[in-house]
């Protein structure tokens, strides 16, 4: 894929398997292939969206990039340096550049820390501030996410869901990172609050020159915020393309089915759309189907799809598809 300059994060043939153990001897009987041979790159200042159904490996991909798991095989290059080979202090220093915003604003904030301590903790961990300077920086971070400085003394339970997510964002911004993995940052929020947080994330990206990997299952949100979108299914990438193309020209049958499952909030427009109803559930990643992982649910599947696994191919215009047809 793109090897030109300006690539910030380059993921090469990433595989993340979790062993399944059974019996009294705890012997390994199988692997959960959560992420199976995934490659993509994210340019500086770009937002790459990652969508898919639950259990498709999108969160695992995000966490594997940040080295929160010991990955099975593959490389993750950050500004050209392979993170998977780093250890200890070196990796800890790299972590300043990469942060994570979590899905659940209720579970990801320590209920016994004040908002100020939550936001300021990364500053202390990385020795970035102390004393008066520390308080100023915490105040500045709160202001950046449109919270008031006086709220620093409150505890998480005194904040609404949207405000908590703002705290999570401020905490991620504290170390002035270059790259942020946003893992379903708006999924737990109401529609009107969701729009506020999306707007905030987009503004911060411009102001601080950030690069995002934006993980979500809501295609309309992902398309809105991202420059390019990658669609994942059972640990593999099915299609990557520019956001403008994903709705106008989806090439993979899975992408098409996913799009048609999202109702458009306009009765007239929605009535005129072609509907593809996927049947069944996502198969288990312990024992994924042979050939193309999507073939058992695909309405276009042929013999070739059952036998041979398709590769991600360039079809021009930054559009990559993994499908025989």
């Amino acid at each position, binding site marked *: 894929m793109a090897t030109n300059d300006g690539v910030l994060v380059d993921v090469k043939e990433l595989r993340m398997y979790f062993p399944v153990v059974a019996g009294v001897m705890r012997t390994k009987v199988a692997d959960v292939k959560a992420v199976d041979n995934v490659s993509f790159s994210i340019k500086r200042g770009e937002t790459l969206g990652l969508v898919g159904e639950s259990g498709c490996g999108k969160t695992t991909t995000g966490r594997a990039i940040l080295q929160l798991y010991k990955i099975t095989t593959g490389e993750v290059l950050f500004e050209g340096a392979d993170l998977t080979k780093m250890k200890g202090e070196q990796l800890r220093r790299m972590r300043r550049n990469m942060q994570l915003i979590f899905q659940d604003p209720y579970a990801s904030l320590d209920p016994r820390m004040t908002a100020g301590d939550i936001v300021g903790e990364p500053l202390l961990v990385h020795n970035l501030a102390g004393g008066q300077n520390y308080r100023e920086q915490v105040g500045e971070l709160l202001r950046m996410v449109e919270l008031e400085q006086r709220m620093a003394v409150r505890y998480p339970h005194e904040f609404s869901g949207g405000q908590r997510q703002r705290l999570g964002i401020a905490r991620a911004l504290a170390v002035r990172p270059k790259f942020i993995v946003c893992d379903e940052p708006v999924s737990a929020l109401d*529609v009107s609050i969701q729009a506020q947080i999306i707007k905030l994330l987009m503004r911060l990206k411009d102001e601080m020159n950030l690069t995002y990997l934006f993980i979500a299952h809501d295609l*309309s949100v992902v398309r809105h915020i991202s420059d390019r979108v990658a669609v994942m299914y059972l640990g593999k990438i099915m299609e990557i393309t520019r956001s403008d193309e994903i709705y106008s020209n989806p090439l993979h049958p899975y992408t098409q089915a996913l799009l048609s499952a999202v*109702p458009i*909030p306009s009765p007239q427009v929605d009535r005129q759309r072609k509907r593809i109803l*996927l049947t069944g559930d996502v198969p288990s990643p312990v024992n994924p189907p042979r050939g193309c992982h999507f073939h058992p649910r695909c309405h276009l599947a042929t013999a070739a799809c059952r036998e041979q696994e398709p590769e991600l191919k360039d079809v021009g215009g930054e559009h990559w598809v993994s499908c025989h047809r």
Partner: protein
Amino acid sequence: MRLIPYPPGIIVGGEVNFDGKDLLKVSEEEIRHIRGNRIAMIFQEPTTSLNPVLTVSRQLSEALELHRGIDSKAATDEAAKLLKLVGIPDSERRINDYPHQFSGGMQQRIMIAMALSCNPALLIADEPTTSVDVTVQAQLLEVINNLRTQFGTAVIIITHNLGVVARYADSVNVMYAGRLMESGPTDVIYNDPKQPYTVGLIASVPRLDLPRQKNLSVIDGLPPNLARLPKTMCPFSPRCKLAVAKCKEQRPELEVVGKDHLAACFRSSEVGQLVEAR
């Protein structure tokens, strides 16, 4: 359905007329015959709404035995048929499984089967698809919709997903801070809304079918705290772009603004400008 426990919840006034009867006046005994029988409900989270220590068969046949008075053998057979109806494969065998042995989507199908078991006249679906993937959401809503056309059940769907409403609802009621803000046929609500809150709600959802906009329009502020909200103002006025002094002093009532179309807003005739400004 009179499911809100008292205390603390009190219904202080009004009527709920169902099939000519005021449900607020009928006895506890009578409502028990209606609840789960004539009016059924699908709850938001199937994982917590199903009893984890009883088999699906046991949970499904409970209502059947109670309301239809059939014996347990017949009820079990009927339960298996219901599971098949909502699209659970191998239903005769799976009926003896426990809820945790099903996926989230399948659990919600069980909830639907349970709600439909007594062939209700009214089905209330409370955020039935909030915790599931879009593909499963599409499957579940198709199931509910097919059953609606097949059995002529009336459906109330409670949701914050405006896409789902656009696809399935015939008419829409928009609520805010415990009050009905606007009510009308679906097409009218989406094309010609007369309440600023409705406009804001529709505008705050990114659209898949339209070119990407740099800025999503946003309703500023937070929903109000119901305990502190003064009774003498429009509850939406602090967040409303059209609010004038009158909106802070007086509470607008629902008024007819078109055919079958009601809105609670002093400036409903000017709401069209908001839509165009977008």
